[in-house]
């Protein structure tokens, strides 16, 4: 590792086998960032740690959607990202001043809420069933 990559370690948040990977690779090659460290979107909390400790100074997402998902999931301390001199980049992004950008943020939030509600519902049902069975066994044995 040379001196420059040590001071500016680049993290890529993208699934290596996902649909965004070819565009990401093309972007990294064009930017001369072939040594960038890849993280799966589910490991974005590791990127957050690396950013907060100053190990990573540049983060690349395929689109803004992955960053928004991480924000909704509370997986990153974005205030630290904003306060640091982090360089945040997207391979593809809507024009920040366009209505399409607002729509993309809204759609991301709506999708996240729907998924979150569904997961919490399923988890709640399963946990409730387990609790009921455990309570039944407990009472059965004590009688």
């Amino acid at each position: 590792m040379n001196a420059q990559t040590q001071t500016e370690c680049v993290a890529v948040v993208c699934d290596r086998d996902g649909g965004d990977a070819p565009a990401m690779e093309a972007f990294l090659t064009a930017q001369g960032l072939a040594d960038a460290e890849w993280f799966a979107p589910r490991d974005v909390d590791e990127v957050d740690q690396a950013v907060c400790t100053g190990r990573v100074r540049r983060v690349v997402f395929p689109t803004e959607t992955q960053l928004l998902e991480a924000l909704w999931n509370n997986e990153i301390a974005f205030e630290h990202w904003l306060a640091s001199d982090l360089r945040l980049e997207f391979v593809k992004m809507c024009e920040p001043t366009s209505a399409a950008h607002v729509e993309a943020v809204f759609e991301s939030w709506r999708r996240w809420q729907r998924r979150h509600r569904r997961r919490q519902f399923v988890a709640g049902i399963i946990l409730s069933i387990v609790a009921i069975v455990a309570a039944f066994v407990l009472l059965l044995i004590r009688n």
Partner: protein
Amino acid sequence: MRALVLLALVPLVMWLTQTALLLRAGLPVRLRINSADLPQRLKWVNRVVTYVAFATVLLIYPPLCHSESPLTYYRGFFPLGLRPLEMLHGAAAAILYLVLLYLAWTISGNVRFEVRHDAKRLARRLAGVPLTAILAAFVEELLFRAMLLNDLLASLNVYLAVPIGVVVFAGAHYVRSVKRYWTFPGHLALGTLFSLAFVYTGALWLSLGLHAGGILVLMAVRPFIRYTGPAGLVGASIFPYAGILGILALILLSLNMWLSYGVVS
């Protein structure tokens, strides 16, 4: 007290093995037991030596201190008849408490559910959970209750033996370098629950059930859960019992066990 000495030899063996492996790998020797930077193959050797050390302690304690075969000695802690039902009782109680905690945190938004692995890896992990839960609980109960606590109870009164047994049990989880140390009070509460279950029943069924039921839920839920609440309150990772509410739940569960088995009518 001889059990305590035998148990204390395990970390020594672990450290000596680690030192030998570090030297072999050309890495600097260190005081902490932490095999993180060892090559994978040597890590595996390290793990096997640790398991063998624990198994040796378990096997040599009965003939050495009680002039009994391991089978005869440990079988004494598993009385038959209706007593095995205590294991089911313990498991159901532990599962109920933990699931209620998770339900409360789900409702209050302190945890979030998501599948954290691909389907194949998830199926592999979940398939191994019941066996791992029973095996891990079985070995720990033999070591810390049937061997250590029973040995302490033979030479000390219960008010001294239980706290010593609990501290050793909790401390054993921190012999290796671990990610979190704030979970220690949770391990103390957990050790108290298992130790009291053993003292009240004079057998391992109940503590084994509580222990295995707990591990079962923790490991089954782990691939699906992310903690979003304050760790000190709701715990983290596989330590939901280490937050303040988890410790409170363990105290109440211990009280339940006392009411069920400890109060002589």
